[in-house]
């Protein structure tokens, strides 16, 4: 009970901070527990994956997080309210049909090198060049599809990749053009209501062509010296798999408002090690585990949290009739048998929420979140229970047993798990809950992440705990996963009704009607249950008292430390 009250209070506090329009205020300011690192003007933060620094090659959230600080896209997200604000583009306008966008590049933006010296000016050509490289098949960029929204871009990519029968398209025909140094005109293939969400993506950062060709494509951004920077910070040091040091860029257009001199990004592998480092004043911001959160809580030190927009669920491989899991009633029995609240309390020990619906959907049309709209349409009822509903679980289970012609102990269900302590704990709780409520002896199979992914994509598993983070702020990013042709639909779910709903939503322009279609999709998922939604994750982190305010951790921007103000 106490815990919930505390969580509620915390929500209130967070709402208040949002209303005064400051990115984030350190709740522990002035406590005197953890003063943080000793170098003045500098902070050190945890950053998990930082394997590549060439923006067009990036795939990890954390890599993009560093690029957010070293490069400027056309637009970016505000650390205050997560809305689109101007960055490299000073202003922009779109044509009446929404297909042509014209960006005015901010004049006087500079490229600097790893010594902080000015090398050249940022122009519209740099964007054109970067996007051409993103689409260049020789570079084999995983996220090329962010640039594939432009007119003829996909056709060019297919042609250049040598796809058989693809008509000839040259890069000049692709829909982005630098009219002059400061004007960039983009033509889209289709209307995209959230097009700006694409260009804010750090993969779409500009690249300075003369430098790129000078160092060579294969060497570009393999060290601080072989890249250029146009963002608020520039990189001075990079020890692979260990740390990256970025310094304030005095030539950045808004440098006057940046008070940090330096950010050090450190990679930790061991969770005890980073805890010790934090308490010993060697790092200022770290993510914490549930147990560590309890420990800080006991000391009276507040642990902050944010919602990354991730929804976690169990994939079910339903397209193989030989597998017991292909039985709908068995999946429903499992969903009702799982006690989501206890699962969170035992494994994560934080404010993560049991999923009431699959998609979190950051914002709804008339409600605060999309999920609330689903609940409203469902008479306030959740689609998936908080606690285990034994009566319903057993009812469905009895039906399943009858259909399968098996007894409870003959049911063969295996959790496929990718290695990692927390993953293993998480699956062991579900395993035990199924044993307790349904009497199923489920097995657990632990695999490396690469093998687990390969088997997931081949639908060669029963249950696999996975998650999905949104690419843009619209329920579509989550819901189109379960269409028959989506490459991320690893369940084998194929429903004509569902596919039709998504197609309808794609062309529907009335936002309320569109949301209603999405609500129907949610209901269909709950009915056919290709996945069993479990929880929405909240990420916990602690911040040393050195960082007073101005930092942000929000959906789509795991880190935004540009305007961090330090305590005196």
């Amino acid at each position, binding site marked *: 009970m106490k815990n919930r009250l505390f969580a509620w209070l915390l929500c209130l506090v967070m709402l208040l901070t949002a209303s005064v329009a400051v990115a984030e205020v350190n709740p522990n300011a002035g406590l005197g527990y953890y003063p943080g690192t000793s170098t003045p003007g500098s902070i050190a933060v945890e950053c998990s994956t930082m*394997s*590549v620094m*060439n923006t067009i*090659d990036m*795939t990890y959230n954390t890599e993009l997080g560093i690029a957010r600080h070293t490069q400027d896209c056309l637009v970016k997200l505000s650390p205050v309210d997560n809305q689109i604000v101007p960055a490299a583009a000073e202003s922009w306008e779109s044509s009446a049909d929404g297909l042509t966008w014209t960006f005015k590049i901010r004049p006087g933006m500079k490229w600097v090198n790893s010594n902080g010296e000015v090398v050249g000016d940022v122009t519209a050509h740099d964007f054109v060049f970067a996007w051409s490289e993103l689409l260049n*098949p*020789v*570079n*084999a*960029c*995983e996220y*090329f*599809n962010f640039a594939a929204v432009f007119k003829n871009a996909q056709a060019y*990519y*297919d042609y250049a*990749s040598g*796809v058989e029968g693809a008509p000839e398209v040259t890069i000049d025909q692709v829909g982005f053009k630098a009219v002059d140094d400061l004007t960039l005109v983009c033509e889209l293939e289709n209307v995209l209501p959230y097009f700006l969400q694409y260009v804010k993506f750090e993969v779409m950062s500009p690249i300075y062509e003369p430098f790129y060709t000078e160092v060579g494509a*294969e060497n570009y951004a*393999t060290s601080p010296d072989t890249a250029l920077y146009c963002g608020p910070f520039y990189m001075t040091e990079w*020890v*692979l*798999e*260990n*740390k990256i040091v970025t310094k304030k860029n005095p030539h950045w257009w808004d440098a006057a408002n940046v008070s940090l001199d330096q950010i050090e990004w*450190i*990679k*930790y*592998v*061991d969770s*005890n*090690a*980073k805890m*010790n*480092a934090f*308490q*010993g004043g*060697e790092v200022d911001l770290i993510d914490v585990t549930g147990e560590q959160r309890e420990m800080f809580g006991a000391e009276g030190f507040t642990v902050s949290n944010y919602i990354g927009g991730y929804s976690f669920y169990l994939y079910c491989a339903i397209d193989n009739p030989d597998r017991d899991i292909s039985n709908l009633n068995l999946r429903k029995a499992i969903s009702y048998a799982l006690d989501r609240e206890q699962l969170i309390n035992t494994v994560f020990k934080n404010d993560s929420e049991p999923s009431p619906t699959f998609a979190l959907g950051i914002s709804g049309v008339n409600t605060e979140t999309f999920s609330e709209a689903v609940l409203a349409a469902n008479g306030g009822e959740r689609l998936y229970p908080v606690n285990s509903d034994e009566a319903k679980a057993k009812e469905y289970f009895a039906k399943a047993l009858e259909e399968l012609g098996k007894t409870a102990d003959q049911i063969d269900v295996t959790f496929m798990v990718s290695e990692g302590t927390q993953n293993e704990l998480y699956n062991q709780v579900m395993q035990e809950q199924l044993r307790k409520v349904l009497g199923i002896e489920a097995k657990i199979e632990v*695999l*490396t*992440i*690469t*093998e*687990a*992914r*390969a*088997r997931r*994509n081949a639908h060669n598993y029963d249950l696999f705990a996975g998650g999905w983070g949104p690419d843009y702020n619209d329920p579509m990013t989550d819901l189109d996963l379960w269409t028959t042709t*989506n*490459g*991320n639909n690893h369940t084998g779910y194929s429903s004509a009704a569902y596919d039709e709903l998504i197609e309808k939503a794609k062309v529907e322009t009335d936002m309320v009607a569109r949301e209603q279609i999405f609500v129907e999709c949610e209901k269909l998922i709950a009915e056919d249950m290709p996945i069993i939604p479990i929880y929405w994750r909240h990420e916990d982190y602690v911040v040393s008292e050195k960082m007073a305010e101005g930092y942000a951790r929000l959906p789509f921007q795991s880190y935004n430390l540009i305007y961090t103000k330090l305590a005196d």
Partner: protein
Amino acid sequence: MARYIIKRLVYAVLTLFVLITLVFFMMRMLPGDPFLGEKAISPTALANMNAKYGLDKPVFIQYLMYMGNCLKGDLGVSITYNRPVMEIVAESFLVSADLGIRALIFAVIAGILLGAIAAIKRGTFVDSLSMFVAMIGVSVPSFILGAVFQYFLGLQLRKMLGMNIFPIQGWGTFKHTLLPAFALGLGSLATVSRLMRTSMLDVLSSDYIKTARSKGLSQGQIMWRHALRNAVMPVVTIMGPTVASVLTGTFVIESIFNIPGLGKYFVTSIKDLDYTMIGGTVVFYGALLIICTLVVDLLYGFIDPRVKLEE
């Protein structure tokens, strides 16, 4: 002697060749695909990625190309990091070797001394004490040892004294090497000292020591000239592979103390299925291992005149 070394070098190249071949085909049998990410990739993009790293050709052709490149000293480009494997291995090996050498010096000197003293003073308090130290090294796994050192000597000591004696994590200064080298060396120290003690006991009961005693040599001379030199043999045998593995770093100590060493790549490259990186680490480690065993075998001849190398 020279003939022997040349012969061994030829064998070394052959061994390395077989090793690379074996590993090349074994890693291709590993389940999974290096390019499967969290999010789906279109078949065209996947084909482009495979083409970029030369994975689109038949495996045997890839093997021939890889071998050809190896001969030229080119280990390819890492799939995960998108930069030359040679560069990554060279950079991180310097760090690992730096740490490893410190740990080894500590382990070997302390281990031989502890073991020898324990044997000479067999059954006394000194014996028990030195074996107790050895026992800690054996019986506490390095992930516990590292974590405990870091917490008590790193964090708590700093809190108590208010000054930074042992940095908690990181790499760069001499101070940073102390705790990890100690944690890394303790395991080897235990092995060395226990082996040393038993072999020293063997030697001390042998006839030539009795002869030396009856000749009237001083205790010091007996120990130094006769006992130690012979007793160190089994330790030398075990040192070859130990040196290779300690120099190339360990995953656990590197993770705990956040050291940019080579050790982690042995694990992560396999988990990420970074083929070029797996190949690079294996070639490097294999070569180092072979060199170390060769050196050990040569040392054997120098230390023990009974062993004839030419055989």
